[in-house]
């Protein structure tokens, strides 16, 4: 295992310390692994989080116009309820707190318990669950769709609404509107190694890729041979467009790298995605290309589409100033 780390057990806390050293606007709560904005404004608080290993998500999105606190679990493991509770306390300025949860049963359980605990303290807490990954069939019975890169759009939109003084209900409404209108599909080319495990959890052959793999290396929908960028764009967009009708609408696009995929390749993919969307009569309003929701050093990518209306456009364009996203 080749990683720039010290002890595997310390990666999360050392990472977050390194992060606040580079970003003086953030404050770090040790042991609880919470990153919060140093300066607090009276407004609805936004809290997200989840397992570590998805950097810059979520701590990189703490700052003006996005999150107020991010809670980190160990690598790929949900943060425990006491950590999430601390995040809620830090984000709370009396206007209530919205939890943005990715749809993993671990996160649902830990954030759910923290919500219970915070409410016992008299903090008003609402929660939304992001489930944008079309690789998985949705279902009310099972856990259903995972939350992946589309979560960043939820942070952005809800963050803008909160910054604009929206009430908890209003912030929750735009977050849910975003969730209803966002779809993602990813693929992986190499596995990643958990620092505490030391070897890859699965292998992919020399010329093999996996369509629909999750950001924790959860198995995808199909193993296939290496494709061209054009074919990949076709597959990923195809799945998204089959799931939700984007035709005739305006969209935000996110081409997201999983960690080890060079920006060069993400831009090449964007070039292909744009062609497909154009062919499908979808207007691109704004495009984001980069590593927004990663999976340690996994090579691969995801494509996210968010259908926009005037309200979402305005919220997407509102200024934000965080380590990982500045608009």
């Amino acid at each position, binding site marked *: 295992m080749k990683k720039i780390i010290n002890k595997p*057990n310390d990666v999360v806390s050392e990472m977050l310390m390194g992060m606040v050293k580079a970003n003086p606007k953030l404050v770090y709560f040790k042991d609880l692994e919470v990153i919060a904005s140093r300066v607090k404004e009276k407004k609805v608080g936004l809290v997200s989080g989840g*397992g570590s290993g998805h950097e810059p998500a979520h701590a990189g999105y703490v700052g003006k116009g996005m999150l107020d606190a991010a809670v980190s*679990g*160990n*690598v*790929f*493991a*949900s*943060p*425990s*309820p*006491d*950590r999430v509770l601390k995040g809620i306390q830090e984000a709370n300025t009396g206007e209530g707190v919205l939890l943005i949860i990715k749809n*993993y*049963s*671990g996160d*649902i*359980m*830990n954030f*759910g*318990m923290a919500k219970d605990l915070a409410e016992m303290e008299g903090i008003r807490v609402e929660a939304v669950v992001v489930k944008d990954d079309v*690789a*998985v069939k949705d279902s009310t*019975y*099972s*856990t259903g769709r*995972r939350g992946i890169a589309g979560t960043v759009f939820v942070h952005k939109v809800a963050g803008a609404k909160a910054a604009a003084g929206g009430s908890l209900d209003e912030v929750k409404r735009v977050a849910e509107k975003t969730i209803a209108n966002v779809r993602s599909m990813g693929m992986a080319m190499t596995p990643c190694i*958990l620092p*505490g*495990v030391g070897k890859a*959890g*699965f292998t992919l052959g020399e010329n093999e890729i996996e369509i629909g793999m*999750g950001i*924790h*290396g*959860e*198995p995808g*929908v199909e193993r296939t041979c290496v494709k061209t960028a054009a074919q990949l764009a076709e597959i990923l967009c195809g799945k998204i467009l089959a799931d939700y009708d984007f035709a005739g609408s305006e969209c935000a696009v996110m081409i997201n790298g999983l960690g080890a995929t060079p920006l060069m390749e993400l831009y090449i993919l964007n070039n292909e995605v744009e062609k497909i969307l154009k062919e499908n009569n979808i207007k691109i309003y704004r495009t984001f290309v980069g590593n927004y929701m990663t999976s340690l050093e996994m090579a691969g990518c995801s494509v996210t589409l968010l259908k926009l209306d005037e309200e979402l456009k305005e919220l997407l364009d509102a200024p934000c100033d965080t380590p990982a996203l500045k608009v």
Partner: protein
Amino acid sequence: MVICITPKEYVEYIELVAKKIEENKDYISELDSITGDGDHWANMNMGFQKLLECKEELASMRLNEMFKKIGMLIMTTVGGSSGVLYGSAYINASKVILDKEQMDLQLLCRVLEAELNAIMDRGNAKPGFKTMIDALHPAVERLKNAIEKGLDGKTALIELKQGAIEGMNSTKNMEAVKGRACYQANKGVGHLDPGAVTMCYQIEVLVDYLCR
């Protein structure tokens, strides 16, 4: 055989579980790699190592306080699904212990049942979902039956263990409904659920320890 578990003994049992988990790193990691995200061993190991660190403190506590503390320690150190599930389990169990100084077979049964209920509640899950519940649920059922039938302690404990083992094995052919294995095309069919395996370990170790 008369069963009577004090905090000191429970901590001895925890030590044995920690050892058992430590020894099965590759197997458990592998199982969670196949059906989940590969961290179940790391999660459980971190939790039990933490309990080891606090063993003196734990052994000196009252039984119900010890259970609550174990729950808090697991909940705060582990994270992941197993952290909150075991955390909820132990905290809930502490409530049925009341002010008892030690556990007899009847109380052990109620404790395990309280753990089971807490896990099902927090996980919003039932037997048959291919989770740790599938090892714990039949184990508790068979222990309850044995006690009702008035079987002797040792036999009842063997029933508990057999229930866990068979329950664990039954997860092999189940389709996952909750947890990360449900994201697989085949819902993890053909592989044991890692959480069921570590749950089974704990019950096995408990029974072996009590029958030593």
